């Protein structure tokens, strides 16, 4: 080290400061501080946005969230009573959508990143999936109406809604599942194959268990998106008002996001039901948060078991 520096010192062009040393140090530090400040501000704004939304909902809606609100049916043209059918409906739709989309999405991801030979076909499929992610949800809704409701004859029902929401959340799930598969070290695959395991044994016993925590992240995102979706269920599953709980997959259901939409736009007493709207929104947010927490807890448990 010293020898090299001594040699550099001897070179004539290095007698002068060559711009790689001390000058500009304070400026560089200022730039660094400035950039960090910028990033910090960006993160802060994001956090603040969430806080403001939650605060806003709490301020306007917390008053109407009572035990009765959570456990009763709406009455008096939905200007009074609770939202239990909507809560149940949203839970059914969200979990149902995951039941459809998670296995299908994971299977697609396994095919794409473990089995399929990289090439044109895989690129086209991937492009299709990525584009699917950008399709507006109302288009999914219309597709669901045309395909599941009418063509398949499922009618406006839980089944149609679940399938539509499942399709809608597929791209997210496939994307994160592929990401999770890619993050499984190649050395696991080599070790397994090296012991005389077949490809399928390697995938099912080593790769998938290691990838499941990451895949769950995708399903959390998908679940959140499905649970909060309005346009996709508007024509396929949701009903304006139902006097009873759903009793089968061919029943229509009330759902929280659609309920908010109805109360806020089509009700007879839009202004009067404002607190109910905010209360419903608050419940929806809490429900999504709760489902997320449950999935995060489950993921953490798996990760802990794996270590």
């Amino acid at each position, binding site marked *: 080290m010293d020898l090299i520096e001594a040699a550099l010192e001897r070179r004539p062009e290095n007698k002068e400061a060559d711009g790689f040393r001390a000058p500009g140090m304070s400026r560089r530090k200022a730039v660094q501080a400035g950039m960090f400040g910028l990033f910090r501000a960006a993160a802060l704004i994001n956090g603040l946005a969430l806080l403001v939304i939650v605060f806003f909902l709490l301020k306007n809606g917390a008053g109407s969230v009572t035990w009765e609100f959570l456990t009763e049916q709406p009455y008096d043209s939905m200007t009074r009573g609770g939202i239990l059918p909507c809560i149940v409906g949203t839970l059914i739709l969200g979990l149902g959508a995951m039941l459809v989309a998670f296995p299908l999405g994971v299977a697609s991801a396994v095919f794409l990143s473990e089995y399929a*030979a*990289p090439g044109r076909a895989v690129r086209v499929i991937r492009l299709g999936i990525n584009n699917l992610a950008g399709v507006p949800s109302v288009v999914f809704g219309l597709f669901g109406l045309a395909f599941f409701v009418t063509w398949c004859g499922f009618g406006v029902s839980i089944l149609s809604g679940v399938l539509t929401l499942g399709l809608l959340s597929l791209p997210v799930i496939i994307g994160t599942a592929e990401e999770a598969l890619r993050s499984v*070290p190649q*050395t*696991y*695959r*080599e*070790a*397994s*194959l*090296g*012991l*005389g*395991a*077949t490809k399928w*044994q390697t995938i099912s*016993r*080593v790769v998938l*268990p*290691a990838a499941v925590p990451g895949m769950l992240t995708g399903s959390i995102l998908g679940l959140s998106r499905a649970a909060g979706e309005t346009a996709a269920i508007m024509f396929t599953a949701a009903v304006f008002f139902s006097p009873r709980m759903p009793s089968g997959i061919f029943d229509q259901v009330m759902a929280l996001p659609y309920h908010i939409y109805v109360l806020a736009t089509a009700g007879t007493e839009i202004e009067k039901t404002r607190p109910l709207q905010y209360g419903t929104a608050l419940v929806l947010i809490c429900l999504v948060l709760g489902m997320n927490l449950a999935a995060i807890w489950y993921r953490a448990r798996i990760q802990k078991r*794996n*270590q």
Partner: protein
Amino acid sequence: MKEQIKIRAKNLNFYYTDFLALSEVSLDFFPHQATALIGPSGCGKSTFLRCINRMNDLIPGVRVEGSLCLDGQDIYGPKVDVVEIRRRVGMVFQKPNPFPKTIFENVAYGLRVNGGRDREALSRRVEESLRLSALWDEVKDRLDQSALGLSGGQQQRLCIARALAVRPEVLLMDEPASALDPIATQKIEELIHELKKRFTIIIVTHSMQQAARVSDRTAFFYMGRLIEVGNTETIFTYPRHKQTEDYITGRFG
């Protein structure tokens, strides 16, 4: 010394798409010997090693020419079952790579995928393998704990036990001690001395001392060619080729 040949490579060429990584390699390996493959980075020694259990198949666009036989049967023959080859030719990798499972399940993995169900028999084989890899005494009380909690050296010996559990005939070791500290390295080397009594061992190493310590024969690779092979003692004391001498005396590499 006329011994039966375990593995015979004859005029083996290996391509990564268009790049010729191995050129006309002819090399024999004998049972109950450890053979060291040495040479500078990129010389093809690891590529050669990974040809033997067809691990290179995982890389798209590779091509093999010539013949590579295990007990006279061509490893790349059309009717060969790759899975069966890999069961007979075990491998230990550069970095310890235990599965994120328990110690027991790591060792039992190869048995399970090969159809082992009987708990009793599994336990016996797991213990046998862990004893062989000199790890039993350190882990016998925590077989149900995660393998990731072991030290690097223990993990590597676990990987060796895992490979031994399926009773392979050949054990390939790809720089098995390069990620380990000197004491763990010494344990692995002692282990190799024991293991070569039962298996055919082929070890890739960057360490000349290690090659000298553990191997009976040494093969020197350079630029995808086998330059020289012979008894380790001969190679290190009277190398026939100048390149070999330059490499083992540390003049390049």
